[in-house]
């Protein structure tokens, strides 16, 4: 009988069940990127002149920039001229009501298990559906409007609430922040916009579901969430893509702004196509996510469960500007086969008595590489700042790697930063114990991994937690035995 560890080498790719494509007629730009493409994109979306200029400025910055190479992930150079920067299902105008949506697109979301309907399953969750470059539907808008909450696609926000967009767009992630943020600023196609007015507690989870469908395209969405004084909102992001042999680029920017006493909870379950077991295909997921705790006692909390993508490169961060503000980062990153993940967070303490908490759980199986990279920076002004970081890695098999790279920079002597890190393995004895009690090997792995991640899973909203739990099991199928 082969040992569990030996058979790790014989991993079989588990089926990626979201890997189908949808036969819709699409309008798309030919591949290539230059100022003209940026202008046409802006024009196609009917944007005001200030935004066209904003994009062009970003594009010029981007042209001066180099693709970063400091992260631990390895991949062949990306040909940015081979990508099409706009793809949208053909529809003359955005459907006025949910009944007018193209039946093929409707079927896609049905298959993905998130039907476009304001119905029981998703009662309590309002969803914005982004299909390739554009938002195709948003549910529960009326109900939210009654509370003064704005939840719509960012294109619509540009038209309907230009003053808000203009004020906050790029205020947390400036166009020149980094290579991919600059690219996104130049060519972002759509995404979600949320504004929660003063003192309003958003009564339902807001959610965006991103779907890449077309081949040879990139997805560059932009999300902007503003929580005004004393408000609260919980936002969920989910994503999938068809299985393709080629790599596809996903370079999103997410900006969160929390004013005095406001709280934003942002949860992601990322399940982009990871490529096959030989490492062919899969999504390159290069994302800039940053939250600004601008107000006093404000709070921003990131929770992410990352199971997909060939390469993930993202560091959801918090800038703790307001006194007594709080930043949190809870992360589970799973890599299997040839996946590579370099993920973590940055906590920038500026205000007095600001606090941050980081809990990162990395799980590596197959021949994958899993890196936690985190920065905790306490500025001179951050009197009495506190940070607690905990990084745990779990290895399955002997050909994977887990790395923890913490950077801690403290310029105020009253600050206190604590860092704990552990690395463990799923032991044969643990697996045997579970199996002796009648639990199959596959279920035992899922059980042990879920146990390892429990602290983070507990942070997810209920609707998401169940899904995420299943996903963990599926991503690790075939990782032992």
């Amino acid at each position, binding site marked *: *009988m*082969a*040992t*569990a560890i030996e058979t790790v080498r014989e991993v079989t790719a588990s089926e990626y069940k979201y890997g189908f494509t949808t036969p819709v007629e699409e309008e798309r730009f030919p591949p290539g990127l230059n100022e003209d493409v940026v202008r046409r994109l802006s024009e196609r979306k009917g944007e005001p002149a200030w935004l066209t200029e904003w994009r062009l400025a970003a594009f010029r910055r981007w042209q001066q920039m180099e693709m970063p190479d400091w992260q631990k992930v390895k991949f062949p150079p990306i040909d940015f001229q081979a990508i099409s920067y706009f793809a949208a299902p053909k529809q003359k105008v955005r459907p006025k009501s949910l009944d007018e949506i193209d039946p093929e697109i409707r079927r896609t979301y049905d298959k993905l298990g998130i039907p476009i309907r304001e119905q029981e399953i998703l009662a309590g969750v309002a969803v914005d559906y982004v299909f390739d470059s554009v938002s195709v539907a948003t549910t529960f808008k009326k109900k939210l409007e009654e509370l003064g909450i704005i939840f719509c696609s960012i294109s619509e926000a540009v038209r309907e609430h230009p003053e808000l967009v203009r004020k906050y767009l790029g205020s947390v992630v400036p166009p020149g922040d980094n290579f991919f943020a600059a690219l996104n600023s130049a060519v972002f196609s759509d995404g979600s916009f949320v504004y929660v007015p003063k003192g309003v507690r958003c009564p339902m989870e807001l959610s965006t579901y991103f779907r890449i469908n077309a081949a040879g395209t990139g997805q560059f969405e932009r999300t902007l969430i503003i929580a005004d004084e004393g408000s609260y909102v919980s936002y969920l992001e989910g994503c999938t893509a068809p299985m393709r042999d080629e790599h596809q680029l996903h370079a999103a920017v997410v900006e969160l702004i929390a004013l005095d006493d406001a709280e934003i909870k942002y949860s992601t379950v990322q399940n982009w196509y990871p490529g096959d077991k030989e490492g062919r295909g899969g999504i390159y997921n290069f994302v800039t996510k940053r939250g600004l705790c601008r107000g006093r006692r404000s709070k921003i909390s990131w929770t992410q469960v990352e199971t997909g993508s060939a390469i993930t490169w993202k560091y959801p961060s918090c800038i703790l500007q307001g006194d007594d503000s709080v930043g949190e980062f809870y992360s589970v990153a799973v890599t299997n086969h040839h996946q590579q993940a370099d993920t973590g967070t940055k906590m920038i303490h500026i205000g007095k008595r600001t606090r941050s908490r980081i809990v990162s759980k990395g799980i590596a199986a197959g021949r994958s590489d899993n890196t936690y990279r985190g920065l905790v920076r306490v500025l001179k002004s951050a009197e009495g700042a506190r940070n607690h970081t905990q990084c745990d890695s779990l290895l399955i098999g002997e050909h994977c790697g887990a790395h923890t790279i913490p950077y801690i920079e403290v310029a105020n002597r009253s600050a206190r930063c604590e860092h704990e890190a552990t690395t463990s393995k799923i*032991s*044969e*004895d*643990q697996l*045997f*114990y*579970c*199996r*002796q*009690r*009648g*639990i*199959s*090997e596959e*279920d035992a792995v899922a*059980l*042990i991994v*879920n*146990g*390892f*991640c*429990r*602290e983070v899973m507990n942070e997810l909203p209920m609707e998401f937690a169940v899904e995420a739990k299943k996903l963990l099991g599926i991503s690790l199928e075939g990782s032992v035995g």
Partner: protein
Amino acid sequence: MTALLEIENLHARVDGKPILKGVSLSIAPGEVHAIMGPNGSGKSTLAFVLAGHEAYEVTDGSIRFGDEDLLAMEPEERAHAGLFLAMQYPVEIPGVGNLYFLRQALNAVRKARGLEEISAAEFLRKAREEARRLGIGEELLKRDLNVGFSGGEKKRNEILQMALLEPRLAVLDETDSGLDIDALRVVAEGVNRMRSPERGFLVITHYQRLLEYIVPDVVHVMVDGRIRRTGGPELARELEARGYEAFVGRLAA
């Protein structure tokens, strides 16, 4: 009558090193067998081979469990068929709640036996009742499986799992070691409650004391991977009085 467990001429190695060197043993339904023997003689090895641990390689011999060829089955299949091993060193699984684990295990076993999943309420009722009898507090049920449990708590917890999983054959590997006198009685009572005409037990122990509570039908003495002697309960008392020296010596001679 067919035996519940029939081991014949069993040879097994670990890391290429022969440990079991021809063990034969037959347990009829309803019987309690005890195995005693010096440290390192192969008692736990036998228990792991029975349960199908992959580190133990069977090189010769056969094991029948009822009508089935035990050696052809995966560890979980053996559990489904009704084999339970209370381990000498129960394993810790961080983040997995004790009760949650037990319920997963019970449902996995029930499913394999063609039964419906047990309802949450029914499960809780059974688990709490059994826990109370074994002197396991509510707090321990909620903790992570075996994590930070004292030696005695781990052993009681093994018996709790056994009680809920209702095996046909339970192998108890030194369940008594690490238990205080009261706990020993509680655990022994837990085992005695489960004795029935269909169920068999294989109790591995170093101490005669346990066998005063769980009175065995048959006692075996294992030395250096072989069963050197088989007798009734009086054999355990003889060992207690004279030690293993006599057996080991005879072997060496």
